Each structure stands twice: as structure tokens, then as C-alpha cells.
């Protein structure tokens, strides 16, 4: 019953904003500037009937996913290294700060000069994600409970058991938090990079061309598609990371009780 209520509530909120969109489009009454939701969804459904749409979406998704996976791998490895060797932390810290505070557009233009346009959006997604993953993972490793590590030492637990039973459950909430908070941003930054780099097959190229030829309805349709894909990725990630957490920490999360501060009893 609660689930039905939640669905009805979400649908009502969605309808409200579609209604506002419709009202604004009626007031402006110029499809070239602000198309109505009806026109946009009509165009979106046309796109959905084209095989090219799926190829484009999949190509962009894979391209940006490659960046995300690279950032996750590099972020985790660097966090392990910098937690173990303080000098590596000191070395990486200013680099990560610079990466975090540099405007994405600067990276895009610099990388356009240095690397190919097909790879650049993946690198941009990685650059956006890397400092967040590194910071969160390093915090997670440093926050690992010393009492449990002492217990592991006293009970002569193997390194593999320490990693599986202590470090992984400790860093999991930080990893999930990094993933949830930045993958959406990485996706959007990746699309923005595509708009500027114009890889041959990409969502960004279609968005750019719609803007170039003043096909505002097309632009809206691709934007709606990007938003829906972003929401779907987020849902999928939440599902996947919850399953991963359950695998590592048992079914504890199902009770809705595990959080960053809840680690030792």
C-alpha cells in the first residue's frame, strides 16, 4: 500500500512539473524557443523507433562507463597506497585539490589539444570522479576501527581475512557514497565533453547539432533522454552497490541499520 502511495505521489509531482512546462510553452508559444512537452515526447518516441538512437546512447554510455571504471580502479588503488605511505598522500593531495577546483571546461579544451576526441569524454568522466573516489576511499581506510584491527592482530587473522572482514565493510559505505554522489556528475560532464569534442557517434554530437540548426525540440528530446538515462544509471548503481554490500557485509543492510558511524559493538 505504501509503495502504491509513493508511486502515486511521484506521478503527481511529475505531472505537476509537466503541467508547468506546458503552461510556459503556451505563454512563450514558440516551439523554436521553448517546445511543449507534447512535441518533445512525440520527437522522443520517434527517436526511440530508430536503431541509431540506441547505438548512439550505448556508445556514449560505454565511453563514459570506461572513464568511470578507470577512475574507480585508480581511485581505490591510490587510496590504498596513500593510506599505507603518508608521503604518497602528501604527493597526491595538491594534485587532487587542483583537479577538483579546475573548471571542467578547462580540462575539456586542454584534453582536446592533447588526446583524441573519441577518448576525451571518458577521460573527463574519470577526472571528475577520481578525486571524489580517492578522498572517500582514503577516509574509509583511515576510519577503519583500530579496535577491530587489534582484534585481528591478536587472533592472527590473515591479511585476506582482514581485508574481507574489516577493511571492505569499513570502506563500503564511503565507496557507495562516492559512487552515488559523483557518477551522475561524471555522466553529465562526459556528455558536456562530447558536445565540445563531437565524437562521430555520441549523444553530445546530436545535442550540438540540434543547437546548431535551432532544432530545439530535438535538443529537448535528447536532453530528456540524457536525464532518464542518468536516473536509470543511478537506480542501477544503488541496486548493484546494495547487492555488493550485502555480499560483503551479510544481510545487515537489509535491516536498514548500517551507516558510516555504525561499525563496532
Amino acid at each position: 500500500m505504501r509503495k502504491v502511495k509513493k508511486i502515486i505521489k511521484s506521478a503527481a509531482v511529475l505531472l505537476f512539473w509537466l503541467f508547468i512546462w506546458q503552461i510556459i510553452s503556451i505563454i512563450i508559444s514558440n516551439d523554436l524557443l521553448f517546445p511543449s512537452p507534447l512535441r518533445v515526447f512525440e520527437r522522443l518516441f520517434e527517436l526511440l523507433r530508430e536503431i541509431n538512437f540506441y547505438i548512439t546512447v550505448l556508445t556514449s554510455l560505454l565511453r563514459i562507463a570506461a572513464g568511470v571504471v578507470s577512475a574507480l580502479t585508480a581511485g581505490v588503488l591510490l587510496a590504498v597506497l596513500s593510506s599505507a605511505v603518508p608521503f604518497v598522500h602528501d604527493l597526491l593531495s595538491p594534485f587532487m585539490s587542483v583537479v577538483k577546483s579546475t573548471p571542467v571546461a578547462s580540462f575539456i579544451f586542454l584534453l582536446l589539444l592533447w588526446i583524441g576526441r573519441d577518448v576525451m569524454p571518458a577521460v573527463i568522466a574519470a577526472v571528475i570522479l577520481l578525486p571524489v573516489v580517492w578522498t572517500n576511499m582514503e577516509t574509509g581506510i583511515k576510519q577503519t576501527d583500530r579496535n577491530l584491527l587489534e582484534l585481528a592482530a591478536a587472533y592472527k587473522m590473515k591479511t585476506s581475512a582482514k581485508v574481507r572482514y574489516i577493511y571492505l565493510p569499513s570502506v563500503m559505505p564511503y565507496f557507495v557514497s562516492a559512487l552515488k554522489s559523483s557518477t551522475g556528475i561524471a555522466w553529465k560532464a562526459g556528455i558536456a565533453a562530447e558536445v565540445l569534442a563531437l565524437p562521430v557517434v555520441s549523444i553530445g554530437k546530436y545535442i550540438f547539432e540540434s543547437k546548431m540548426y535551432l532544432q530545439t525540440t530535438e535538443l529537448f528530446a535528447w536532453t530528456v533522454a540524457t536525464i532518464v538515462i542518468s536516473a536509470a544509471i543511478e537506480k542501477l548503481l544503488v541496486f548493484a552497490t546494495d547487492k555488493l554490500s550485502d555480499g560483503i557485509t551479510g544481510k545487515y543492510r537489509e535491516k536498514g541499520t548500517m551507516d558510516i558511524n555504525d561499525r563496532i559493538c
Partner: protein
Amino acid sequence: MTEFVNISKKYGDKVVFDNFSLSVPEEKISVIMGESGKGKTTLLSIAAGIVNPDRGKFVHSGNISYMFQEPRLFSWFTVSRNIEAVLPSDKKHLSRKYLSFIGMEEDSGKYPRELSGGMKQRVSFARFLAYTEATDANLLLLDEPFSSIDENMTAAMIEILKNSAKNKTVLYVTHNSNEAELVGDNIIEL
């Protein structure tokens, strides 16, 4: 031979041990008593190898089992997995045996947050006993193991300990003189 030889240890400016030596009676339960800050826990930690002395050494041959003052349970594991986590893969079955010893077999699927303080301490005790058997430890270290458990239950736990500690050397820290008399063969004042 179980011996602390010329141990010195300080935390910052606070000297806890200065050239301290102690020969621990073999196959006896020795109770360590003393005021707070006298280094009772530090002594057990040095014996367990989780704290290094600044000078001196601890001498013992054989495996060591340690029960901490706090339960130190993994909040993300069930009671039985908390015990299994420290056991070698061919000794996991001991979890069930010792949960039954402490009367908590039916709580094996619960998570630590579902347990009272005393129950957590009993789980920690079961883990300690299971590890002792799994590794055939001959030196048992217990740091105020039953501080959250009521008197009747403590007496029952001490009986279990005494049965499990036969032919083993035990160092048992407590503040409670009644408990010390009940458990100890001899008392060491720090």
C-alpha cells in the same frame, strides 16, 4: 616458561612500566589486580603482541588467546559469523559448540545491535574459547571479561573458563575481588 623480562613502557610522559619483570606461574589461573592506570591492559597487550614494549621482552612458547575488555564484535556480522571470522576454515564448526556452551545457540543469527551488553560479552567469550580450542592456545589472556555480566552468569562463565583452562596458563585481569577469589589460583598485585 611465561615471563615478562625487564619491560619498560611509557605513553608520552607517563611511565607505565619501568624495568618490570614477572614470571607467570605455569598452568595456573593468575589474577592481575591493581588500580586504574597501573598497566594491567598494557601488560596483556604486550603478551598478546599487539603493543610493543619500549624495552624488555615477553617470553612464551605456544599460541595465545586473548579476550578483550570490550566485546569488539563486527557489527556487520551475525553472532555466529563473528566467531567464525577468527577461526581457521576447518574449525568453523566450533562456533556452534561454544554458543551452546554460553547458552546463546538460539541467538546465532542475531546481529550485535540486537544484543544487550552482557550478551555481547558472552559472544566475545565464546569466540575466545573457540579460538583457544582451534589453535590449541596454551596461554589465555582475559581483560575484565565479565564486567557487563551479572553475578550468577559470571559464576557460570567462570566455571566454563576453568574447565577450558585446564593445563593452560591464564592471566586474568579484574577489579572485582570476589571474582578474583572465585577464579584465581593466585593473585598478582600491580
